[in-house]
């Protein structure tokens, strides 16, 4: 079908009009018209866009809160786990510090052989000062072996089972340790008490007791090896009318916080009871 001349002229006129409008727009002559026309359109577009975003936010924000809450819960759980790990590691660090100190002590006295043990309990009776350690006869521990820490003398083994032992502390009321003062050669006795205080007994009046003097085991009696630090003199009590003077001793070991100890396994206590003379009836 051939186009009619009238239709051809219409098309040409339309093209001419559009070209003219295009050229006018390029020349900037249509700017006021466009501004007037587009401004309300842009406003409508802005309104539509803001409403759309509001609807989207309304639909998506609750989901974000839920996911954030879940994430927060996960992080809190993770935080709790990390805090537990920190506490665990701090505990291990403290334990390692104690063990390093014990190791240093053992290295400083190579003549002795040691067995490290953890303190796992205390005597249920408040009248007695004993602790229970987690090593026994299976580990080579025997009755009477001395027990020490890096700070000084703890006590001696009073009872042994295959896997645990009971240690009588030097602070026990029935404990007596033969000691000497580092500054002199006086041999005296150190006694425990129910309060855990240590007292030097049977100190001759001519011995000068000075606050701060170190108290060491003397080795007499064969119960403990010589020269283990026990503590230092805290105060002396001298009454001229008494035969002996006494002194309070500050223990070198913190017995309230005893965690790990060393048992001297190559020391065999001497049983001197048969040598003590008894009255003949």
């Amino acid at each position, binding site marked *: 079908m051939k186009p009619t001349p009238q239709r051809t002229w219409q098309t040409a006129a339309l093209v001419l009009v559009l070209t003219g409008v295009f050229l006018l727009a390029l020349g900037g002559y249509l700017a006021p018209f466009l501004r007037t026309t587009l401004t309300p359109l842009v406003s409508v577009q802005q309104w539509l866009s803001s409403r759309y975003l509001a609807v989207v936010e309304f639909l998506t924000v609750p989901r974000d809160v839920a996911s954030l809450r879940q994430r927060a819960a996960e992080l809190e759980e993770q935080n709790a786990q990390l805090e537990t790990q920190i506490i665990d590691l701090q505990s291990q660090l403290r334990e390692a510090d104690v063990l390093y100190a014990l190791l240093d002590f053992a290295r400083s006295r190579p003549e002795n052989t040691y067995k490290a043990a953890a303190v*796992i*309990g205390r005597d*249920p009776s408040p009248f007695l000062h004993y602790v229970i350690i987690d090593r026994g006869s299976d580990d080579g521990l025997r009755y009477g072996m001395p027990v020490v820490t890096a700070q000084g003398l703890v006590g001696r083994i009073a009872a042994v089972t295959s896997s645990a032992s009971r240690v009588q502390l030097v602070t026990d009321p*029935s404990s007596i340790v033969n000691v000497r003062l580092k500054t002199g050669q006086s041999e005296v006795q150190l*006694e425990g008490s*129910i309060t855990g205080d240590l007292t030097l007994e049977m100190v001759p009046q001519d011995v000068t007791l000075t606050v701060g003097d170190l108290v060491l085991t003397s080795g007499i009696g064969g119960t403990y090896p010589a020269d283990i630090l026990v503590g230092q003199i805290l105060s002396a009590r001298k009454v001229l009318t008494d035969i002996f003077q006494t002194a309070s001793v500050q223990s070198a070991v913190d017995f309230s916080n005893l965690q790990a100890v060393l048992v001297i396994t190559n020391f065999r206590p001497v049983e001197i009871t048969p040598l003590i003379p008894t009255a003949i009836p």
Partner: protein
Amino acid sequence: MIWANLLAIPVLIIITMLQISIVSRMPLLHGTADLLLLAILGWTLQKRVRSGWFWAATAGVLIGLSSAISPFVAIASYLLVAALVQFFKRQVWQAPLLVMLLLTLICTLLTQGITLATLVISGTPLPILDSLSLITLPSILLNMVLAVPIYIIMADMANWVFPEEIEG
């Protein structure tokens, strides 16, 4: 009955472990609570319980094994406690919680008195007044504080072991 006796062994072992590892490390002055004594009191005071003697003897053996105190002294102390509880059970029918508190006071004095006497006789130098003020009185206070919760635990356990029969 046999179940109640068998139950004594694991329960008292657990209580002894708690006593040695925790309670003995938490002194008030120099006194500590006696969980085993409170467990015997709490258990034996229950209405349907008749195995108090076995519990007392078991507790005595466990203390004898773990403490430096003579096992005979520990067993005798706890058996005396059980006897005292039986006596009170026959005399007092009401207000078991008050009886628990009263018995806690009396039995703490009794067991600690026996221990103290034994140690003094065996030659341990223990000043009586210091022992009373620094060990016995604080121990009584701690035992009184723990008496009620332990009584409640023992009552629950007794109800579990001896369920009350419902008459139809």
